């Protein structure tokens, strides 16, 4: 600390001593020092993002073809009007949230506010539903479905891994013997190479032991057998988890809808992720929960002990302390982990690529997988570039939404 102060104090003197010639030499040195990094990041980081957009405007299969403008984009979303309605609907959701949390927070405007927010929400819902169904009908169902599966993966992994990590970190933060050992073990899944871990999980979650030994069960199915549940096809299963759990009820419900003359049926993507995708979600939770535990532990270390002591004096129990002190004061960490987690999971690739099987068909094809296949297998470079740009916009939207919605709930003590 004293050294730092001393250093700061002497800095102006150093600057004053500098001569014009010396300053120029320093600038040249600085630019030479940053040149390798900036050059590499510019060439492989910044330039490619602009060039990807440029590529998406041409017909480009291995070699560059003719200019087609935004044809790839219109092929993907189908109808610009529908895409606009969908986007406006999403924006309206944000507006409704802002109205509810800000503009109408005062008591006098509450009654009118409720009515107006309800109106905005209804309009948003209609716009989103109409926009989406039109895009699915007229655009690339393959690509749009992959976006939905990407959201399934993100929404399936992030909340679970953060909730688990928060509980484990809170338990671990107490005076626990073997704390370091537990922390080391929890972190193990994260440091393990993801492809190798996915190869192992592909065995754990296969449908059966082996085609050469029909009677054997995979480890996941052995766990199910222990719980009295029939074996499942896990990574090979394209049917939605909800259908496996409530198939009869869903069939009855759809029959009831049909009897009422309703054209819509509860099927397809409405039933959520396939069991194959759920298996990969389980892998995602396994991989990242430990990382979150470590970071939450660091956050817990920053909460003043006096708060807990004061709460204990007031007679608060463990649960009350958890919800009143731990959760609010960890909200910056939670927000940060959620933000990073979503950005990462929306782009997840390796585990899905390794763990997908032909039997699951396209039910584990997230946007990243589809983009890769479009590029690598179909050799449609420009279409892949257009798809990647739309995914980029989705990631941006999700990031902005989180900042808007969660950012206000973050409590900085």
């Amino acid at each position, binding site marked *: 600390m004293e*050294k730092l102060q*001393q*250093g*700061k104090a*002497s800095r102006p003197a*150093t600057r004053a001593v500098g001569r014009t010639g010396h300053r120029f030499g*320093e*600038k040249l*040195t*600085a*630019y030479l*020092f*940053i040149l*390798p*990094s900036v050059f*590499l*990041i510019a060439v492989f980081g910044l330039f490619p*993002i602009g060039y*990807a957009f440029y*590529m998406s405007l041409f017909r480009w299969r291995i070699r560059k073809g003719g200019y087609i403008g935004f044809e790839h984009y219109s092929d993907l979303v189908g109808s610009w009007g529908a895409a606009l309605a969908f986007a406006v609907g999403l924006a309206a959701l944000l507006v409704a949230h802002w109205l509810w949390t800000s503009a109408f927070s005062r008591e006098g405007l509450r009654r009118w506010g409720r009515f107006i927010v309800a109106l905005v929400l209804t309009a948003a819902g209609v716009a989103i539903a109409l926009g989406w169904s039109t895009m699915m009908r007229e655009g690339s169902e393959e690509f749009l479905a992959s976006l939905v599966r990407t959201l399934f993966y993100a929404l399936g992994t992030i909340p679970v891994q953060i909730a688990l990590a928060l*509980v484990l970190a809170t*338990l*671990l933060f*107490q005076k626990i013997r073997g704390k370091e050992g537990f922390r*080391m073990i*929890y*972190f*193990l*899944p994260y*440091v*393990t190479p*993801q*492809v*190798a*871990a996915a*190869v*192992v999980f592909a*065995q*754990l979650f296969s449908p059966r032991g*082996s085609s050469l030994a029909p009677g*054997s069960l*995979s*480890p996941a199915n052995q766990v199910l057998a222990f719980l009295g549940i029939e074996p499942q096809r896990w990574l090979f299963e394209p049917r939605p988890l909800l259908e496996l759990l409530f198939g009869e009820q869903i069939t009855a419900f759809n029959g009831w809808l049909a009897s009422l003359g309703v054209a819509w049926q509860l099927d397809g993507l409405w039933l959520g992720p396939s069991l194959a995708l759920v298996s990969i979600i389980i892998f995602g939770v396994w991989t*990242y929960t*430990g990382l979150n535990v*470590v*970071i939450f532990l660091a956050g817990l270390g920053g909460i003043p002990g006096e708060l807990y002591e004061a709460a204990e004096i007031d007679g608060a129990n463990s649960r009350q302390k958890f919800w009143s002190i731990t959760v609010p004061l960890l909200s910056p960490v939670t927000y940060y982990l959620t933000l*990073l987690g979503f950005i990462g999971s929306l*782009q997840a*690739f*390796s585990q899905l690529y*390794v763990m997908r099987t032909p039997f699951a068909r396209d039910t584990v094809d997230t946007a*990243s997988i589809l983009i*890769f296949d479009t*590029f*690598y297998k179909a050799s449609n*470079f420009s279409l892949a570039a257009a798809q990647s740009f739309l*995914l*980029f916009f989705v*990631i941006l939207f999700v990031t902005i939404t989180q900042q808007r919605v969660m950012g206000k709930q973050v409590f900085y003590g």
Partner: protein
Amino acid sequence: MASARRPTDWGTVGYRLRYVPVYLLLLFGAVVAVTPFFYMVSTSLMTLGEALTRTWVPQSPQWSNYVRAWNQAEFAQYFMNSVIITGTTIAGLLVTSTLAAYAFARIEFPARDLIFTMLLATLMIPETVTFIPQFLIIRGDIFPLPGGSWINTLQALTVPFMANAVSIFLLRQFFARIPFDLWDAARMDGAGHLRFLVSVVVPMSKPVMLTVTLLAFITSWNAFLWPILVTTNPTWRPLMVGLYNFMGVAGPETHLLMAGAMITILPVLVLYFVAQKQFTEGIATSGLKG
């Protein structure tokens, strides 16, 4: 008071019983975290018959499975490839990042903050957007490369990763806290920035250098999408792609596949147990998913 209270608390049966569910939950989490490793190691030491029938523990360990995986599935070459690729990438990254971080932290020059901000902005760019143009760059389609196309070369697997904003950011944070009187003393001795950096700053910065190295190691060792694109033959194929390909050809020989996975994981585990504190604290401090 506190010291007197502690033995009493721990002596109370009721107080100790409070921790039973805590330990049970923590142990359950630990078992879940470790089970896949147990399965991998156990299966890797089985005979073919044991692997097929999904027993949990081999009767006697078959260490020859590792020899077979190493030799027959080309893991020897993949391993050496990954070692060379990772070593080269880390060496290049440490040089470029150290120089850049030092300049950003210690020297005032025009547009410094603007350039730094733009570098940080690249953290938001998804790999899925950039890998397509990057592939064309590596193929030499966009502008000429020294030696023509870099497909199936070491430079394709290393050069694009020899600079990243994360490393520069971490090093810059640390370099900014080095006292200025050290710089004054070095200048009195006639040292320039480069000598000061090499002789004083770097030796003082071993903890952050280790963190940057670990993060770079994890990223490079784990590289998968990019090597699939730029390697079409085994010459420079890294371990992860080799293991993935082996998954396709191993068929029922799960024991060999698990031995291959273990070969892939072992260097990281060794590094982790040797530098465990640096792993957890470095990554927790940076908060970055490497």
